[in-house]
């Protein structure tokens, strides 16, 4: 058995002329919460589907839990759980019926099935709604039901495709607690998201942009690389300050947050003083301070670098 839960090399998927996933290399260790961060259309779902054996890669090799995919996909299916991006349980079955169906299909014995379903209903706070039709549940309840359905057979590896995109912040926090409980029990979790705050909670993450894996590592590693390149600018005339900063070639991006500007510099040795000086010359009085980089900055750097790289002639 290999060390990592997932190993993928040069993974590529083309839909006609569109390259949805482009030569992605992936290494997901066991018992880890691994995040896929990327905007819509960046290829997160396509990658997950290839890893589950639902889509055949155009190119590349995949090994999941020591099995070659897609050749051994059928064997893999008893060991994985998959929570689809769109709610895919049966709207016209009750909560309990849905779970019982999945338990049987996943091969639980009659006796196991009863205790497991009761247990899941309680654990995911659905026991007061077990007779309700799944289609009539709220967003947060549906999502808990889908998670319960995906883990009914205690899979070693769990794929979650944007599990929190349709729920409120309270439910999101709650949901992540549940994920860490599962991870503590030894489940490997691969979860896609486009929320930075969620990505920050992952043990490791990969950033996808238009089908390319543009960065990966632990959140701390990723942000550490940008140490010294992020600043906060407070000014009475933020628009003017922004214009002045945009003119500087070593400024990668300026984002306005309220009256403050978050500035991300290119690689080099930019200092607070030089920024302040530049702003004064442009007639914008401002305070400048250094701030720790976050994943948003990592994302901006990674996607810009990739875009610049592509523009260069081969």
């Amino acid at each position, binding site marked *: 058995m290999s060390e990592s839960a997932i190993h993928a090399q040069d993974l590529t998927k083309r839909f006609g002329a569109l390259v949805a996933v482009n030569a992605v290399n992936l290494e997901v260790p066991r018992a880890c919460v691994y995040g896929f961060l990327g905007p819509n259309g960046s290829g997160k779902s396509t990658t997950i589907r290839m890893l589950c054996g639902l889509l055949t890669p155009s190119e590349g090799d995949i090994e999941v839990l020591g099995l070659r995919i897609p050749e051994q996909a059928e064997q893999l299916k008893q060991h994985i759980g998959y929570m689809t991006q769109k709610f895919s*349980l049966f709207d*016209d079955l009750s909560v309990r019926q849905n779970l019982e169906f999945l338990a049987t*299909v996943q091969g639980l014995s009659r006796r196991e099935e009863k205790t497991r379903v009761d247990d899941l209903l309680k654990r995911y706070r659905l026991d007061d709604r077990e007779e309700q*039709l799944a289609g009539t549940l709220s967003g947060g309840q549906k999502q808990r039901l889908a998670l319960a359905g995906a883990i009914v057979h205690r899979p070693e590896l769990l794929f979650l495709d944007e599990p929190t995109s349709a729920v409120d912040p309270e439910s999101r926090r709650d949901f992540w607690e549940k994920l860490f409980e599962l991870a503590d029990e030894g489940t490997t979790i691969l979860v896609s998201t486009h929320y930075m705050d969620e990505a920050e909670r992952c043990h490791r993450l990969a950033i996808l942009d238009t089908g390319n894996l543009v960065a990966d590592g632990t959140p701390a590693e990723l942000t550490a690389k940008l140490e010294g390149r992020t600043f906060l600018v407070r000014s009475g005339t933020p628009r003017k300050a922004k214009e002045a900063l945009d003119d500087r070639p070593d400024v990668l991006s300026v984002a306005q947050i309220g009256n403050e500007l978050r500035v991300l510099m290119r690689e080099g040795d930019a200092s607070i003083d030089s920024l302040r000086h530049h702003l004064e010359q442009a007639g914008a009085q401002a305070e400048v301070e250094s701030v720790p980089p976050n994943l948003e900055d990592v994302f901006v750097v990674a996607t810009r670098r990739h875009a610049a790289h592509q523009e260069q002639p081969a």
Partner: protein
Amino acid sequence: MNLRRLWAIMIKELRQLRRDRITLAMIMGMPVLQLVLFGYAINLNLRHLPAAVVDQAQTAGSRAAVQDLLASGVIELRATAQSPQQLIDLLREGRVSVAIAVPPDFERRKLDGREAIQVMVDGSDNVVQAAAAQLAQYPLNQPDDFHAMTEKPISVVSFYNPERRSPVNIVPGLVGVILTMTMVLFTAVAIVRETERGNMELLITTPVSRTELMIGKVLPYAAIGLVQTSMVLLLGVWLFDVPIRGSLWDVYMASSLLILANLSLGLLISTRAKSQFQAMQMTFFVFLPSILLSGFMFPYDGMPRPAQWIAELLPLTHFMRLIRGIMLRGADLGDLWQDSVALAAFIAIMLTLAIRLFHKRLD
């Protein structure tokens, strides 16, 4: 194949069906509606059908006989013709739907007790045909000894429907038509709907096998098909006195064969159709030739060769022969083994193809 899994899929399907009011209403309503429509449409007693007459005898007796027929009110004189050929032309052009010919030897035929008047009808119209049959019952109020001499004074020749359909003939076929319409569509849609709703992506990520999935999905519909069969048979017997001369067991065996054939075809369609709408279109692509070529509407023997070849490929054609043979002629499945085997082969081929073409993948 794991039986517990198969059972789980069947139960799931039935539970979903129970909550699907519209499909349920269609399953139950369609047999009743069709039976009543087809059955009673044929029985309608129409009056004032446009008619043409040629009287080649031109005797007092012949003129009186024609007057009597007109007086019945069933037909209304629209044209007088000079020859039987003209009558046929009028009929073909659709200007009249009933044509009455009195032959030159009318008086002789009457004396001999042979058919003395010929009523020709546009048999492609069931309604007209029924009316003509009614006309034929009409007593010719002729010289007192007329009835003694002939039992059947008028002969009815049906031009475009030589088999002379009646509810008795229609109802057995209707079992097949209804099963073809509902069974193919319901299975095709049942699977495509799961794809559309996203359930399929979940199902194919579980260890459930293709065979379990396919069989588990169609078996509940097979049960429904048998319920529909029973409804049509019961109503047919009750409303139209349709006979079941063969054994009931054979009737159900033949129906089961057709049900399974249609379900397998539905499965095959579901592996190709991308949306419920496409599934419906593909269903009608099969349904239309089934209705037209199977012998339900038009007699098989009257069709051109290529049409007959196509008809042989349609399960409904074989079922028509089976069910009419069993119900109307009292035949058993053994007598009609060729059609039973044809249906069984159709099932085997379609089911194999469907399972082969269904992949537990999204591409």
